[in-house]
């Protein structure tokens, strides 16, 4: 497997290639290759779910372009948007956040930054569950927090408890981290982050392909 930093660099190459491409054929091929990649690694289902979320945005973007600059440019632009976001989808689906963070730490990034990057994602579901519980508790006693403008007046009833609990959670988390030695110098990592010959080869070959493709176009 490649080092997370190599993967990040390859994704950036790909993004540059997509941005530099202006023809429908090239873009379709670039997107097609990404699709193929996603299918090969067995993430087609996740990709489709994610695509469904992205589609409305791409269509809206395309419609605006069509109206302002015309049909061809609109198709190219929407395709560009899809291919570009798909490239980063492919990156994030194959790279765990802590791997990216920790490998940057070995290059000198402070561990605290890496920790925030990987842990923030962990707590998104926790907080959204808390938000749901607050909504339920308030609605249960008659405070109308149904979606819509009319409930705006009652938003303190939602945001107050949620924010205070987020702070409580942060405090408990800080304590647990402290007890487990967070912030001590000379941290080691369970996984080994090293640029191996494979990585260097991928970086160089990738760069050559990028230059060639841009040249061909």
């Amino acid at each position: 497997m490649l080092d997370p930093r190599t993967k990040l660099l390859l994704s950036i190459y790909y993004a540059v290639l997509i941005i530099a491409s202006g023809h429908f054929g090239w873009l379709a091929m670039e997107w097609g290759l990404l699709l193929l990649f996603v299918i090969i690694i067995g993430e087609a289902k996740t990709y489709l779910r994610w695509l469904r979320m992205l589609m409305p945005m791409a269509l809206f973007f395309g419609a605006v372009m069509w109206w302002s600059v015309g049909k061809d440019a609109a198709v190219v632009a929407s395709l560009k948007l899809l291919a570009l976001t798909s490239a980063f989808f492919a990156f994030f689906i194959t790279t765990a956040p802590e791997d990216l963070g920790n490998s940057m730490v070995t290059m000198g990034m402070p561990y605290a930054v890496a920790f925030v990057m990987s842990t923030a994602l962990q707590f998104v579901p926790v907080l959204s569950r808390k938000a749901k519980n607050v909504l339920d508790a308030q609605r249960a006693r008659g405070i109308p927090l149904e979606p819509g403008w009319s409930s705006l007046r009652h938003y303190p009833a939602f945001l107050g408890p949620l924010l205070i609990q987020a702070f409580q959670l942060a405090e408990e988390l800080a304590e647990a981290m402290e007890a487990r030695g967070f912030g001590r110098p000379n941290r080691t990592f369970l996984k080994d982050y090293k640029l191996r010959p494979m990585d260097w080869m991928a970086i160089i070959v990738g760069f050559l392909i990028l230059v060639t493709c841009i040249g061909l176009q």
Partner: protein
Amino acid sequence: MISSFILTHKLQYAYAKSKEHRALDNVDLEINPDEFLLVCGASGSGKSTLCRTFNGLIPHFYEGKLQGQVFVAGESTTGQSVAGLSEKVGMVFQNAQAQLFNRTVELELAFSLESLGIPRAEIKNRIAETAEMMGIVEFLPRNPHELSTGEQQLISIVAVLATNPQIIVLDEPYANLDHVNVRKVRAALNMIHKQQKGVVVCEHRLPFTVSDVQRMVGLQRGTIVLNGAPEKVLQRDIEQFGLETPLSACIGRRLRLPNLPLDVPTLKKNAPAISYPVDLKPSLLHSAPSDSSFVLEVENVSFKSDDTKILQDISFALRQGECLAVVGANGAGKTTLLKHLNGLLRPSYGQIRVMGHDTSKFKVSDLARHVGIAFQNPDNQFFKLSVWEEIRVGARVLGRYDEPWLQELVELFGLKALLNRSPYQLSGGEKKRVAFAAALACKPKILALDEPTAGQDLNFRRALGEVLAHLREMRQAIFLVTHDLSFAEQQAHRWLLLSKGQIIADGPPWEVMADASAMAQTNLEPTDAFLLYGNP
């Protein structure tokens, strides 16, 4: 000479916020390296504070005033860092969710080892060993936040064990767990103790713990008031310290058995059931009212979420003046059922009628007039600056403001002295009382309480019992959701036993517990009272 591993000497501590109040006062305690110790005491007695001095969180993480000394492995904690101490004393906090912050269980186990700068190969070995020993190998690649509450508690214990501390300290490990999970965690702790390690459990629910431990230390207002082997300590009256003596020990004491039995099997072995004093049998409620009108009717209700059936074909009814307890293990669907009462969730199939109204035709805010719910965590609802505002806000929004009734509630829940305080400054038990009063503020026909006793001590449980008795006299219909069977057996006329979203038994508490096959399905254990007095 065996020297103690942890030693406190004239230990005093006051938190920065309340300087005049001493959370710990003159504590002298020695803990041996391979001891199984219970630290008990009512809420606010200083258990958690004492725990936090063992691994240096006090004084390094908390500001405040520490006097006296704490020695761990012969060195004062003031001279050691918290991280360094984690190799000697491991600490498991009450809220498992906040201490699991890695993407996989494996990384969770690795975290402390990485902090200590241990080489990679060694980290891998230690994780493999610890996971193997504690039987959690299958969990290693999973995300801790996707595990059940009981599994999370187990993982947070194992994560602390990875650094191989000599003593592991747990702050109320059983507070949020049902019997099945309590059993699992107890088994894990006993296994850790067998490895010549020390285990310190802080807990106020004695029946879960006394038969495991070698010694118990009782705290009251920061001072040690009890210290000795459970068999000795439980000879004394410990209720004055807000602690509950297990029923078997009560009976054993009365029968003057030479060795005080700490659990039901031991008592049964040592004394015949016929000899158990009748006056120690807890009083159960008489049969439920059968002539009053229905306030709630649930017919063939099923509920699906993401194609998973959470409730299946639930039918029951609740009468005015009746107290019904829905009991079942964690994850049986109890809270999901509760959320159906006021329309927070709508049945996928079937019908629910509250006061004769079909809930599918009404908004949550309309149903809230009839059903007052207090959820498990009161912090979810507090947003006003004073307790008084907090209690009346619901009634005001619903247009049901009735000042004399609110005054009555304040009296009933003993909140008079707290009315001007901020709800967030209250203790856990006080917060719950405010939430209960708020749920009753608009005079709902049905009062629903979600796990009202979770994490609460004897005094709270007693006081809540008295309030519920008073409400039953007032013909209030009560819907209890709980896995606290000993509370539910004394407070409810009737139990609904829930397992995997289905009702598998419905009847008076002791009749339900007598149904051995149904109880086995839920993995719940009958109460001590039933085991001792219920099986003639």
